[in-house]
């Protein structure tokens, strides 16, 4: 049974694209077939984070408009063969995302993949609505920060009212993913804690991703953090989150960096 998952947040810059790449790669490494779909028409970035920016020939809009078929537009990951990417168009405007077109593409992708992961653009406009409309489940990416929590609440409201599931009277499965979490600051009381955010948003917790330099390093080299630095704290947190998505019952913990002997002896230099 294939699942359509939307990664959304309302607010920009909280880590939707990073999360899409990391969760998708983690699921694919686990043997699932996964496609990542970028819905950020005009400002695509998933291709860059995945390191596929040089290989884009066709995009989602080309498929919707019939200029290319799905197989031609899908870009296979070179590191994990069961992982594919459907890029967004960089040039055309988002009115080209027609409801029927998107429905058809998602439907076709469902037949080919175990997981269809839709990377939503920021905001609550058409692109974001199209990304969430066909979803079976949603990952709401939230930073422990007031504006992010507020926007997440708004998005949760939209997931419960404007999606296909909502219109059919069904419940959308929603998961909270806390990113850029700093346990020290939270314990000092200078950052919203997990309990605070969970209490306010009251949806189940999928995972807590600690703030980590490995995430930036991974996007620099164009690889999901779960591929580039699989042993890092952030990658382990994403891997656990992916296992929970797939139905495993795992206790939510915040992984910490494992310092190797070498790292410990020579503290990493900041250039």
């Amino acid at each position, binding site marked *: 049974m294939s699942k359509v998952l939307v990664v959304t947040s309302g607010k920009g810059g909280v880590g939707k694209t990073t999360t899409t790449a990391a969760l998708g790669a983690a699921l694919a490494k686990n043997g699932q077939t996964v496609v990542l779909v970028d819905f950020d028409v005009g400002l695509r970035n998933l291709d860059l984070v995945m390191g596929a920016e*040089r290989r*884009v020939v066709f995009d989602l809009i080309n498929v919707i408009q019939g200029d*290319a078929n799905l197989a*031609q537009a899908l870009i296979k990951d070179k590191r994990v063969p069961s992982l594919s990417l459907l890029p967004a168009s960089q040039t055309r405007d988002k009115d080209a995302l027609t409801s029927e077109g998107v429905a058809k593409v998602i439907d076709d992708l469902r037949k080919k993949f175990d997981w269809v992961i839709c990377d939503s653009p920021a905001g609550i406009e058409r692109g974001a609505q199209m990304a969430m409309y066909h979803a079976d489940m949603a990952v709401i990416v939230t930073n422990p920060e007031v504006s992010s929590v507020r926007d997440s609440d708004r998005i949760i409201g939209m997931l419960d009212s404007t999606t296909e599931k909502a219109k059919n009277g069904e419940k959308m499965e929603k998961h909270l993913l806390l990113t850029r979490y700093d346990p020290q600051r939270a314990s000092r009381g200078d950052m919203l804690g997990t309990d605070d955010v969970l209490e306010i948003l009251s949806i189940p917790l999928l995972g807590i991703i600690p703030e980590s330099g490995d995430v930036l390093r991974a996007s620099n080299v164009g690889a999901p953090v779960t591929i580039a630095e699989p042993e890092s704290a952030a990658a382990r947190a994403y891997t656990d989150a992916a296992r929970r998505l797939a139905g495993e019952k795992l206790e939510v913990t915040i992984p910490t960096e494992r310092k190797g002997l*070498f790292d410990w002896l020579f503290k990493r230099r900041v250039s």
Partner: protein
Amino acid sequence: MTFLSSIFKRRSSAPVARDRLQILLAHERTSGGDGKDDLLAQLHREIMEVIKRHVAVDQDKVQIKLDRGAHCSTLEIDVEVPGLTDAKPAEKLAATPAAKAVPQSKKA
């Protein structure tokens, strides 16, 4: 593994990011972001037009691969042409025409 790899792996990643961005932006600036084709896209379109003029091309039997580099880009168009001549069914005609230097907009 962690010990050895930590020696080799800790090369800084920012230069990689800078190089990737330079290649990508050079391409995006020339295409102007308004849907105008760059050279590679234009080649792709025209090559397909020529092929279509001679044979009926099934869209599902066309594979296109692209790799944009700083000094060299490749465009690989793989067209399956059904029953070209008498006996042989579905012969594959691989066209890899554009392993060529693509002019990049000069760095400022």
